[in-house]
């Protein structure tokens, strides 16, 4: 039993992601990306992942894609005269990409997936996620902070007007 809502959301998501990939104007690509991310957040809510949904919007839509837009506007990119890569690459890429999708779908169809019909109260909230994050995943968590620090430094250095 698949709710029609899911079908609608899925179709919208695919459409938005196609905008990302195919639109000639980078700004529209970015907007397509935001839409995709927003719809994914809605799907996350459907999967009881409230916190991740909120973070998805705050981090992805609110920061990362804004950065994309910011850079696109800073470089003043317009509609591109030549959007696509050379034809052979496009054909190979499309064929291989499509094949990947089909193959993955085929693999998915083979094995029954786990399905916990009922999850405990509070699932997807802040507390259980934080509990995993600060116990089992504490080392990756700390390493992530290092990664972010390095990224900040790298971005600051690269963002300077002149690289010497």
């Amino acid at each position, binding site marked *: 039993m698949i709710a029609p809502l899911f079908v609608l959301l899925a179709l919208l998501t695919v459409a938005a992601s196609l905008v990302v990939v195919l639109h000639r104007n980078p700004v529209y690509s970015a907007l397509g990306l935001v839409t995709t991310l927003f719809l994914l957040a809605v799907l996350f809510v459907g999967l009881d992942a409230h916190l991740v949904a909120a973070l998805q919007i705050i981090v992805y839509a609110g920061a990362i894609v804004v950065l994309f837009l910011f850079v696109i506007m800073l470089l003043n990119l317009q509609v591109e005269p030549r959007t696509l890569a050379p034809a052979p*690459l496009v054909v*190979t*890429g499309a064929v*291989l990409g499509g*094949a*990947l999708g089909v*193959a*993955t779908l*085929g*693999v998915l169809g083979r094995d029954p997936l786990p399905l916990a019909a009922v999850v405990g109260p509070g699932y997807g909230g802040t507390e259980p996620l934080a509990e995993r994050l600060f116990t089992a995943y504490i080392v990756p968590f700390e390493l992530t902070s290092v990664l972010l620090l390095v990224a900040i430094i790298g971005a600051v250095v690269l963002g300077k007007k002149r690289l010497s």
Partner: protein
Amino acid sequence: MVTPETTTLLRWIVVAPALGALFALVAGRRAPRLVAWVGPGVLAGALGLSIAAVLALARQGEGGALLDPLYPWIEAGGFRADATLRLDALSAVMLLVVTGVGFLIHVYAVGYMAEDPDIARFFCYLNLFVAAMLILVLADNLLLLFVGWEGVGLCSYLLIGFWYTDMANAAAGKKAFLVNRIGDAGFILGLFVLAWFAGTLDVQGIAAQAETLRTAQLGGWPVPVVAGLLLLVGATGKSAQIPLYVWLPDAMAGPTPVSALIHAATMVTAGVYMIARLHPLYALAPEVLTVVAIVGTVTALLAALIGTAQCDIKRVLAYSTVSQLGFMFLALGTGMPGAAIFHVVTHAFFKGLLFLGAGSVIHGLGGEQDMRRMGGLRRHMPITFWTMLVGTLAIAGVPPLSGFFSKDEILWGAFTGPNPQPLLGVLGYVVAFLTAFYMGRLLLLTFFGAPRAAHAVAHDSGHGHGHDQGTPHESPAVMTVPLILLALASAAGGALPVPAIVETVTGPHGAHAHAPFWALVLATGVALAGLGLAWLCYVARPELPERIARGLGGLYTLVAEKFRVDELYDRLVVRPVFGAAERLATADRALVDGAVNGAGALVAESAQLGRRLQTGNVQHYALGVLAGALALVLWVAR
């Protein structure tokens, strides 16, 4: 045997000078004057701690020891070496000499180096040296001893080349380091042999394994012989014996306090100390002891001969040091470590004194070192003269000064010791005569006769002594007070019961029976004869040396040119090594480099094919990634 007492006192004796070195390293550039206080200050601290430790040791009675276990150092299989400091009667004697004489020389150095801009660096090295020397002396096992051994070698290198802007000084430092390396190689091999057969490098442990070692064989040779000879190689390097003595005379390039402290009083006695400490091992191999005695005697004779024909005041003292070290080896070789250490102590007093006196003379003359341009300094530098006179009489062996007792102990021991060598004993008397002669020559040329120095003083040829004055002048109190104190020690040091103390540790007991009266008279006579000959040659009939030299002809030249040992080594060792290295280098370029370059070229050539895959377009790479991902999915789907 008294059970060793555990303490934490000993580590601070080592730490104090190390902290001084650290301070000089960190703060020296900014506060050089403070360093001049801290440098000797930490030595005073170490001396005080040493006295406290020795008093604690004395309370234990005969055969006692203090142990300071720092931490377990190496534990590999059955082998174990701990960083443990140990104080027993033998190391106590050395400890007091190192800290006591070291302290006086540090004080002296404050005056001597006062105007050197690099005084902080100097005290850093000097303190570091003392720390390393204390590790060497206090080490409980040979491996830790080796740490100190290498440490003092490093500091010696640094200090010989202290005025490194002069290429000759730097070369002298390098020579000292390289020659010592040869000895160290022997030492390490000796350690390997001992570790293999005794299973321990602990000094007490080795003594306890004596029975096992006695029967052990290595390549058909008894292990004690092999180990003893290898360790002897190390000792000849550090203590400047044939064939590795050549570095010591050159080491006089360093500042005079360095010569006094390192190259006369302490470091060069490390070899003597080491052999004395391992006397239980050497006692197992009398043949090695004989070798030790022969090496010592020949060195003593050779160095004394060279010493008679040198003109540089410090060089004479350097050869004298080599010669006296030969005496100590003779004592070791005749099975009398007590006598050897006794001579180490008295030698530290009078040779330290003589070097500091020579430094005072050099200082007073604005850097002049050539005795031919000295003379008549008696009136200008009375304190230096009188103290050096004491030192000269002491080294010559005139009773009742200290040298007389220690030298007598050795000479008589050569005939009556546990491993008697009468022939070498006779040679020893010859050396004693020569010693008296060249020391007398040094004293007379420097302080008597007409001043030949006036013209030499005006221009300063020295090492940054900026204050050249018209006339020679006495040194400041900071330099003369250590001289006086050392002179007192040189005069009275003979009364110390060092042999008896040392033999409680090393054995054999009772080997230091005093010589009969006629032997004492003979020794005194030899010393006085030497001095008298010097008086005859350099005061009464100054033209005599010229005639003798001319009469001897080539022989004299040979002696003056130090038997051309350096040239011999150059011909026998250095050049063949260089030649072989040249040939090997050619082979290296052709074969090894050729193989490496060939492999590289091969890879580069074959890479020409593969590099077409690298287009620089990131999308082509992404295509590869995608293809790989697809392959993976298909493999899973299989």
